[in-house]
């Protein structure tokens, strides 16, 4: 009898997936970027009842042999499903600054994903998780393989959940949004396999990679660590190509701290990351800004012994990955800002545009250009007011770009 009730409870979860999908479907009217989430929740809603029938069929067999052996897996499915529903239920379906959504969608477009496959949830960390990784961590692979299989090798499995602290969601944190370009970089790096293809022996799951660093052989430890650190460097490079000097700047001013200077298994030393990001920005023409970033970094670290060299990632891999990213992702160059400014107002120089931005005059440019114009600021921490102005400029730029698309479509 208890088992029958358990069967019913698991089946009831189907209606919760259906309700969730309904909510997302409604939200898409106001938030078109949620279209991909709508697709995912629709797939989940349709696949879940079929997967449940198949799994309950297996449990039914065990029930006739041992009720106690059948009860626990059933309870585990229930528990894992509830946690998964909890994660999906926590996704923000509104109350997000439109500018932030536009900025992330713009980043995805630049990496070749015009239908941005992402949703946002609030957490105390900035992180990116794919659906398949979330399911694996819940144990679906073991307790509910029929459902897990739906996500493998499918569009829905690669859907991205961006975890962000509430503070980063504010318009008054707009300068920090360049860090989201790094998270979008993770989506690119995972899907393109630009790093993992160089480590064919290594698992793709981050949980497994972290575990290998903890318990693997010396050779595996090094490979897993190299892979994870190269991933971070690759995502930094994507972020610089998307947002020019803005990312290197924010990496230094808001994410750099002396406590973080030593590397962890996943992340390279932060000072090395800042230096590399500054160098990459310099290659894109942001020489003045890069020099300023490096000089500030040196001030910050002058009393600390940093940049040990024994944890360096293999340069041959780093160079090959860098070349692949350069080929695949268009760069946001310093020289482009000048033409964007002229496009906005003929004869408007970059310096004047930066002044206009700071004084709060309407300025419609691409999001990355707006972030770069405010970088580096004279003070390390930009004021909230300036950041709100930046958010306005990002919004204005998007409105203009949409308007131009409409005009183009009408003309053709």
């Amino acid at each position: 009898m208890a088992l029958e009730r358990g069967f019913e409870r698991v089946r009831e979860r189907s209606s919760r997936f259906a309700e969730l999908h309904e909510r997302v479907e409604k939200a898409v009217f106001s938030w078109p970027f949620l279209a991909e989430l709508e697709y995912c929740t629709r797939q989940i809603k349709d696949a879940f009842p079929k997967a449940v029938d198949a799994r309950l069929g297996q449990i039914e067999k065990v029930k006739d042999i041992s009720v106690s052996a059948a009860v626990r897996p059933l309870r585990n499915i229930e528990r894992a499903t509830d946690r998964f529903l909890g994660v999906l239920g926590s996704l923000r379906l509104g109350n997000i600054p439109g500018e932030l959504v536009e900025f992330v969608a713009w980043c995805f477009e630049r990496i070749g994903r015009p239908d941005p496959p992402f949703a946002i949830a609030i957490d105390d960390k900035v992180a990116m998780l794919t659906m398949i990784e979330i399911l694996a961590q819940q144990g679906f692979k073991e307790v509910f393989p029929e459902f897990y299989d739906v996500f493998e090798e499918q569009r829905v499995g690669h859907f991205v959940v961006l975890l962000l602290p509430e503070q980063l969601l504010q318009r008054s944190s707009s300068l920090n949004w360049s860090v989201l370009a790094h998270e979008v970089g993770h989506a690119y790096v995972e899907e393109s396999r630009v790093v993992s293809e160089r480590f064919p022996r290594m698992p793709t799951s981050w949980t497994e990679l972290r575990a290998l660093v903890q318990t693997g052989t010396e050779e595996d430890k090094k490979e897993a660590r190299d892979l994870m650190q190269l991933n971070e460097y690759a995502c930094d490079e994507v972020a610089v190509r998307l947002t020019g000097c803005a990312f290197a700047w924010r990496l230094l001013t808001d994410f750099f701290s002396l406590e973080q200077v030593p590397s962890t298994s996943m992340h390279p030393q932060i000072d090395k990351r800042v230096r590399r990001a500054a160098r990459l920005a310099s290659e894109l023409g942001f020489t003045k800004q890069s020099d300023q970033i490096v000089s500030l970094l040196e001030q910050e670290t002058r009393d600390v012994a940093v940049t040990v060299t024994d944890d360096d990632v293999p340069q041959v891999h780093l160079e090959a990955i860098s070349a692949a990213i350069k080929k695949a992702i268009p760069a946001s160059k310093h020289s482009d800002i000048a033409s964007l400014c002229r496009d906005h107002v003929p004869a408007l120089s970059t310096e004047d545009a930066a002044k206009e931005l700071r004084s709060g005059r309407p300025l419609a440019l691409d999001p990355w250009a707006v972030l770069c114009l405010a970088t580096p600021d004279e003070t390390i921490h930009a004021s909230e007011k300036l950041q709100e102005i930046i958010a306005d400029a990002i919004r204005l730029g998007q409105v203009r770009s949409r308007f131009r698309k409409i005009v183009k479509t009408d003309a053709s």
Partner: protein
Amino acid sequence: MKIYQSLADASLYRIVALIPEQIVFGLALATDRTHRASDETRRNLELGREFCEVFHHVSQRGEGYRATNGSTATIAAGIQELPAANLWEWHDRMFLVKGVIEGLLAGAETENQKLEAANEILLGFAAFAKQTLSSVSAAEDLQRAR
């Protein structure tokens, strides 16, 4: 809501509690000869073989154990979260389970009595792991609250 932390906790729970219970499921299927060779039985028994193999090494060598792939590394990292002294207490019993599973996978005739004994051990281990995890996380919560 701390989604990231809750997923990490779920990942640990998966290894030390959920996998042993899933092995029990496979062993229960194996008691019925008509299901012994089914894909579902094999899947769970293979999971069990991997788990018991790693458990055997980790309980013997502790942090000196070196995993050979991502899957065994994850299991080892999860098991290492449990107190080493307790792991050693479970060593002989889990070794027995390992023998039963290996026998079944090799196609050996195995008495149902042995399968039931293995099930008892695994359920006991899962209960111990859950209890340990909940006391560890309660202590951590208290620490955080302070």
